[in-house]
């Protein structure tokens, strides 16, 4: 495994409140450059809230958040140039084709037409999408949509990609395929920040943090966490924390 040393995300005392409800309660953590960082927690634990703050979609109530070397408060647009984002809804346009979606997102990131064209060709080649390149997104199965959404999210070569429950609702094989893509992205130097509530996926991460009711209750490599909580697998770790 690569040695990850440089911090690419630094979060200190992050708090996010919605009225009286505290969604993120004093979070502090760092993500190292190049690692696959798993952000785990039950539904409603505050994962999506944090990921929205990290990607500049939502203001923190208080705390310091640095992403890719920029402050998400003051330098939000610079942060945005350096990150990719894929939400639970993997926001592709259903009434556009695969190619049109890629071209549109590439275009609004300011990439040149020539670059978009070349990269699209190689992407279609690599994902074996020749047959579906001109199909509308709405006609494709969920697994394909997720792969394409991920490819779109990293199309502009961001330093970090945020994935918010990217593999919801598909079978284990499709999920496995998806994780292959995550590894490929990681190998090419992109830091991956992924939320999930599948504990088997946690095992694929370099380090994981486990959230419960807005707080981080555990943060380490999967092996260390299992040792720390005297558990056989991540499932047990998770249950011990959430109870």
């Amino acid at each position: 495994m690569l040695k990850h040393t440089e911090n690419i995300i630094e979060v200190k005392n992050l708090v996010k409140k919605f009225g009286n409800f505290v969604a993120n309660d004093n979070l502090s953590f760092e993500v190292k450059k190049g690692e696959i960082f798993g952000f785990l927690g039950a539904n409603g634990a505050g994962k999506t809230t944090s990921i929205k703050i990290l990607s500049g979609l939502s203001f923190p109530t208080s705390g310091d958040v640095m992403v890719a070397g920029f402050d998400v408060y003051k330098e939000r647009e610079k942060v945005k140039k350096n990150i990719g984002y894929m939400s639970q809804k993997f926001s592709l346009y259903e009434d556009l084709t695969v190619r049109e979606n890629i071209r549109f997102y590439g275009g609004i990131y300011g990439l040149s037409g020539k670059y978009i064209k070349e990269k699209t060709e190689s992407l279609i080649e690599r994902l074996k999408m020749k047959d579906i390149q001109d199909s509308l997104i709405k006609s494709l199965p969920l697994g394909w949509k997720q792969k394409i959404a991920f490819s779109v999210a990293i199309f502009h070569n961001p330093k970090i990609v945020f994935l918010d429950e990217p593999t919801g609702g598909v079978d284990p094989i499709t999920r496995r395929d998806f994780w292959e893509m995550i590894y490929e992205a990681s190998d090419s130097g992109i830091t991956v920040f992924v939320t999930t509530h599948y504990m088997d996926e946690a095992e694929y991460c370099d380090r994981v943090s486990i959230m419960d009711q807005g707080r981080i209750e555990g943060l380490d490599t999967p092996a260390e966490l299992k040792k720390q909580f005297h558990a056989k697998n991540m499932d047990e770790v998770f249950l011990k924390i959430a109870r």
Partner: protein
Amino acid sequence: MKKILYILQKEFIQVFRNKTMLPLIFGMPILQLLVLVNAATLEMKSIDMYVVDKDLSSLSHKLINKFEGSPFYHVSGVSFSIDEANEAIEKNQADFIMHIPYGFERSLMRENSTQVQLLIDGINGTAASLINAYSSSVINSFNRNIIVDLTKMPQIKELNPIAVETSYWYNPELNYKIYMLPGILVILVTVISMFLAAMNIVREKEIGTIEQLNVTPIKKFEFIIGKLVPFLIIALFEMAFGLLIGKLLFDVPMVGSLGLLFGFTVVYLLVVLGIGLFISTISSTQQQVMFISFFFMLVFILMSGIFTPTESMPLWAQKVNIINPFYYFMRVIRMILLKGSGFWDISREFFSLLIYAIIILSLAVWRHRKVA
């Protein structure tokens, strides 16, 4: 700037791929112009009159014949009883009663003057005053004929020492359709562009793609321009299409410069689209957009002067019209098309709308949130 082109490309693909959009853009103008221009008329035809003739003289018959002979009147009932006539009005079977009293002819012969009574249903004030005006002119013309008949003198000028010669400028035949068509066209273009623009952004909110756009480094003004220009182009096309229909089917005169008209339309559309985009940025569902825009649309249309001259509205209403974009365009399109007004004639409206456009678009850009 190149980013904006990518948004334009995407918007156009989406509009033309949408199966309900094309019929809407092409079908609606034809249908609305055909139906509304013909339907929304203030001309009175087949006015139902109820005759109470208590005189039964040759003169009273002549008067009734005069009305019957006119294409505007239709005698819906005859009776001796004014009560029965009143009942007919109450049941909506008659629009007005012509009451010819007993001694109508005799009084004319002996005293050189006589009386006839018109009782008009005043529920619809506009219609009532039109009926009054029409009927008075029928009776006046009857008057002149009697004088000729009774005095056996040829109709000579002395009887009308001051002759009023009326000529209606810009619309000599008082053709209501060429007055209505530009008005309906304004509504049509506005409704289509405002709704399309307002629905568009909120749709992206509903399906969640807005979030994906918000994590990109796209600037707020680039986003708003990218959303605005496609609908501007569609609305201008709509305008041209409507004018073509007006020319071909209704022979609407186009006295003024079409270039000036389209120039003004662009400024007007910036305002309308700005309002649409603004509504869109403050709403989170398409229902909200529908309700808000419907409310404004209704108030604006009724106050715009499409049916009633804005100058005769109360002063406060005229003040409210300062923020009514319809009001400006309604005036200007008629001025340019029917009167041939030039730029300086419409410069007040032009610059008012220009300032309006700048304000509302700035508001839309300002209110569009990339962060929650």
